[in-house]
């Protein structure tokens, strides 16, 4: 992959409104090496699996081997009655109820251990405890559950077919939620120059962070507190969920998220397994740990992504969209998961389908189907990769019908920069950017004429584009309407000097790959001039940090970056007051520069000295000192808080082997605008990693289920992830249009890379196949699917 240092001439003509980066090379805008990397690269990270405590018991779960059944009973192994726990043994755990306020939402009750029925393969039935995981698995293997097997719903499109069994028997039908936007589009047939309809499917995927879930629960008898060490990307929300489910005060729960080996959304979910470990630790007064293995992660827990679309689009002769009609179904699985609920995907589909385009008319209907599969969880980009795939392939189909280029049809539809900020027909509020310029650059970077020349010689090669935007850091005004258990508000950060003048930052969200230990230090440096090496970030512990809804939704750099900046600004004010007194100057005569308080143009006094004065020489403090000391908690929320919109254009050259259906990515270009980049190198990493995951969505990853609801990929030999040999050198080019709404102009960009690949790659494949009259509709575009499309065109 291209590294930051040898990137092709990125970011020319960029508007960089910040000075510190250029002066010290360490502030906002600097590609500072990551502070956290030393510990990761030397294997000194500390994950839940690295933490063992004396007297600890390990848990293995007995899991359902069937997708849908009445659970008639479980016979515990002889002699192990007190080490095997069923739902009835743990009545102190309330069921997980992740409610949405959207009208018509049906509420599922997910008990931590199956009660009465099992509703998907892998659902936990019993917790088995032993001093080692292997022995715990022996116990699980010796349990004898008894089932009355029921027909399973394994295809979302049959969820409301007549006569199907009800998964939640008190519901009227197997549907969590339907959403609609009605608009009569019947006149468009008469006026449109082109109309296409596409039926598209994205497969069910399984998020695959290197570290699975894991939890260690202990009861601290001194503090009378449950201490939960868990692989979480939002420790405070986990704490709230655990306290609610167990009927504890929030103060009786402390959640610690140590190093976390990849989140991607999976680690934002409150798992039943966490609640079971907590209840057992309290019940047994012994530490209890569960470490998820790959089989559990793939087949029982980390499912995501599965969508089905019927899209009809109309356009005029120039390719301008006249309207879209979208019917989308999401396979939401058996339960609504906490805190994002079973409606997030479908609700997003409705609101983000127009993408970066001007869409004048729009009808949609979404259905969140309940099926006998694990709950669908939000994965990097949530619904956007599917939506982008549906929109981008539909646009190309229109372009082919109209004889337009893929670039031309996008150029006429993208929101122009003159229209920014722009509010689209479903109320999405775009902050800033030049979407067409990203398209232009991406097209220029891949050699389209060369591809066309190879095509003319009969080579099966194609070029594909995907333009999209990504709403990030959207807050209260967006989420309160969805009425989920969690609505993000003001983000808080704490900044304080320790007596030796080291700056300590405390944030409630969590860094697990985002590099926040570095970037938040850069923000502090930007404001206070403290060297990033003298900044410590404390995160991942609810006892030590202010409440936060956590790291998700591409929000951390906007929200925590803003909060840290504000806390540091206030801290700087307090330091200035003390510094002025020590310098015997007026408050108005001093300024902060290079980590000192100095008389303008004159001598300075180090922040260390100011810290020492507050803590250890208080006799030297001025009378008007702020009694809050050198310790500030500040809150931040962008205004408006409807979210930043980063955007990108992905351009791909793909070659198809027409004899095998194999696809090779020859070139991959991403032109990306994340506003002001706090650390461009880290943004590169985010984009590259996301793009690799998107390549998985496009070409490899698929969790197939059979008609009985059995998952068919139980190992990474069957569930293919792209690796180093499958991801091409991705060439990045950045634009940097500041967001007018955020502290430094930064935009959320963490999920972006994962959004574009499916659309861009499938468009490249379909461009290559166009001379054969073939088109691929379903993801991933496996060799078998590609070859089937070629065969279908031949017939």
């Amino acid at each position, binding site marked *: 992959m291209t590294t930051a240092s040898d990137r092709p001439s990125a970011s020319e003509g960029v508007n960089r409104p910040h000075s510190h980066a250029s002066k010290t090379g360490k502030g906002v805008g600097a590609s500072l090496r990551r502070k956290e990397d030393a510990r990761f690269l030397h294997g000194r990270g500390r994950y839940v699996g690295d933490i063992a405590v004396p007297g600890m018991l390990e848990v293995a779960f007995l899991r359902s081997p069937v997708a849908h059944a009445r659970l008639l009973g479980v016979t515990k192994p002889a002699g192990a009655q007190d080490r095997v726990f069923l739902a009835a043994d743990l009545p102190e755990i309330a069921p997980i109820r992740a409610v949405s306020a959207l009208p018509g939402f049906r509420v599922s009750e997910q008990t931590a251990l199956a009660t009465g029925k099992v509703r998907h393969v892998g659902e936990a039935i019993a917790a088995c405890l032993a001093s080692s995981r*292997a022995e715990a*698995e022996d116990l699980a293997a010796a349990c004898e559950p008894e089932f009355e097997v029921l027909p399973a719903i394994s295809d979302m499109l049959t969820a409301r077919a007549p006569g199907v069994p009800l998964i939640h028997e008190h519901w009227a039908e197997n549907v969590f939620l339907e959403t609609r936007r009605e608009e009569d589009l019947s006149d468009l047939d008469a006026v449109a120059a082109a109309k296409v309809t596409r039926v598209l499917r994205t497969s069910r995927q399984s998020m695959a962070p290197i570290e699975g879930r894991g939890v260690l629960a202990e009861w601290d008898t001194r503090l009378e507190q449950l201490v939960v060490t868990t692989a979480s990307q939002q420790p405070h929300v986990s704490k709230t969920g655990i306290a609610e489910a167990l009927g504890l005060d929030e103060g009786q729960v402390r959640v610690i998220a140590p190093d976390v080996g990849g989140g991607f959304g999976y680690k934002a979910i409150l798992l039943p397994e966490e609640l079971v470990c907590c209840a057992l630790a309290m019940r047994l007064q012994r530490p209890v740990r569960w470490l998820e293995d790959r089989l559990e992660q793939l087949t029982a827990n980390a499912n995501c992504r599965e969508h089905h679309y019927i899209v009809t689009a109309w356009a005029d002769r120039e390719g301008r969209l006249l309207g879209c009609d979208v019917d989308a179904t999401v396979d939401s699985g058996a339960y609504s998961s906490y805190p994002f609920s079973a409606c997030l995907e479908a609700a997003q589909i409705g609101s983000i389908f127009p993408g970066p385009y001007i869409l004048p008319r729009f009808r949609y209907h979404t259905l969140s189907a309940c099926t006998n599969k694990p709950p669908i969880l939000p994965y990097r980009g949530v619904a956007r990769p599917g939506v982008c795939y549906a929109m981008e392939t539909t646009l190309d189909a229109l372009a082919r019908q109209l004889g337009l280029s893929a670039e031309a049809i996008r150029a006429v539809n993208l929101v122009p920069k003159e229209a920014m900020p722009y509010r689209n027909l479903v109320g999405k509020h775009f902050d800033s950017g030049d979407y067409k310029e990203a398209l232009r650059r991406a097209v220029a970077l891949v050699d389209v004429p060369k591809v066309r020349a190879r095509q003319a010689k009969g080579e099966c090669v194609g070029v594909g584009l995907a333009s999209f935007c990504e709403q990030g850091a959207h807050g209260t005004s967006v989420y309160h309407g969805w009425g989920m258990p969690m609505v993000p508000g003001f983000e808080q950060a704490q900044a304080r000097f320790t007596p030796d003048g080291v700056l300590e930052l405390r944030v409630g969200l969590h860094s697990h790959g985002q590099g926040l230990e570095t970037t938040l230090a850069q923000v502090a440096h930007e404001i206070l001039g403290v060297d990033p090496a003298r900044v410590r970030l404390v995160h991942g512990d609810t006892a030590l940090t202010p409440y936060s809804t956590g790291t998700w939704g591409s929000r951390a750099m906007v929200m925590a970056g803003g909060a840290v900046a504000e806390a540091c600004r206030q801290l700087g004010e307090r330091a200035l007051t003390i510094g002025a007194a020590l310098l015997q100057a007026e408050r108005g005569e001093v300024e902060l520069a290079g980590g000192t308080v100095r008389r303008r143009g004159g001598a300075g006094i180090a922040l260390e000295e100011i810290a020492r004065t507050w803590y250890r020489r208080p006799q030297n403090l001025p009378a008007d000192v702020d009694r809050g000391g050198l310790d500030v908690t500040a809150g931040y929320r962008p205004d408006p808080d409807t979210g930043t919109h980063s955007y990108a254009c992905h351009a791909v050259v793909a070659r198809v082997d027409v004899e095998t259906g*194999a696809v090779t990515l020859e070139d991959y270009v991403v032109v990306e605008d994340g506003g002001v980049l706090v650390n461009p190198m880290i943004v590169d990493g985010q984009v590259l990693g996301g793009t690799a995951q998107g390549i998985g969505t496009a070409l490899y990853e698929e969790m197939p289920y059979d008609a009985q609801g059995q998952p068919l990929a139980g190992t990474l030999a069957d569930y293919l992830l792209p690796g180093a040999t499958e991801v091409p050198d991705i060439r990045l080019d950045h634009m940097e249009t500041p967001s007018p709404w955020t502290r430094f102009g930064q935009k959320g960009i963490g999920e972006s890379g994962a959004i574009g690949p499916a659309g861009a790659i499938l468009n490249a494949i379909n461009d290559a196949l166009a001379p054969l009259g073939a088109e691929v509709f379903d993801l991933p575009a496996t060799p078998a699917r590609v070859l089937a499309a070629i065969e279908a065109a031949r017939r």
Partner: protein
Amino acid sequence: MKPAPFDYARPADWSAALALLAAGARPVAGGQSLGPMLNLRVATPEKLADLRHLPGYAGVTQQGGTIRIGAGTTHAAIEDGAVPGRLGAILAGVARRIAYRPVRNRGTIGGSLAHADPAADWVAVLPCFRGEAVVLGPAGERRVKLERFVTGMLATALSPEELLLAVELPALPEAARWGHWKFCRKPGEFSKATACVLAVPGEAPRAVLAALDAPPFVVADASALCAAPEAEAARLVAALDVADPWRAAIARTALRRAAEAAS
């Protein structure tokens, strides 16, 4: 997942190894197939007999025109040139494309053959050489032609009380031509179609088509295939009745491309 409890023994000589097998122990070599099966509790042997310390278990020797590769020779050793001459160069090219280096460092040629996954590389390639498997059992040594060694999905000519000692292959002249083509989407994914073609001057060319969820299909005289790869590959695959049209298509492609490379 963790394995079910099992016992472990490390026999010091071959008779001790055979005695363990007679008592029901399962041999373990590099553990690269058996290990995952134990972890998934697909295999639950009561006892493992670790072969790795047996004398002469690993290593390559040549006697006249015959090259003997000990069952315990690792994929990595073969990749690194343990086998001499033209044959060695061909086998190194095959070994290089088995999984990843950490798997090749432990996995053995004998373990791969004994495991008999139809998609495995040695299973697919070795029948192309006029060679033999050397088998040791309670009644002494016996030899099995390599094209008859794998008899089905995870099934071989070995009885549970027998061990694979070595494979013996004829040394090849420098002029021998070789074509090998396999389809997998990423390293470490099991092949969905493998074909190889060996053309030794003065002998009828041989071909193997494998990884079709069945024992390898050997074409003892592949002259027609080498003369008209496309038509003959289509004819051969059509006769095999492969149910999945995509698998049939890549099988045709594999045979044709291997034949073209060998000609």
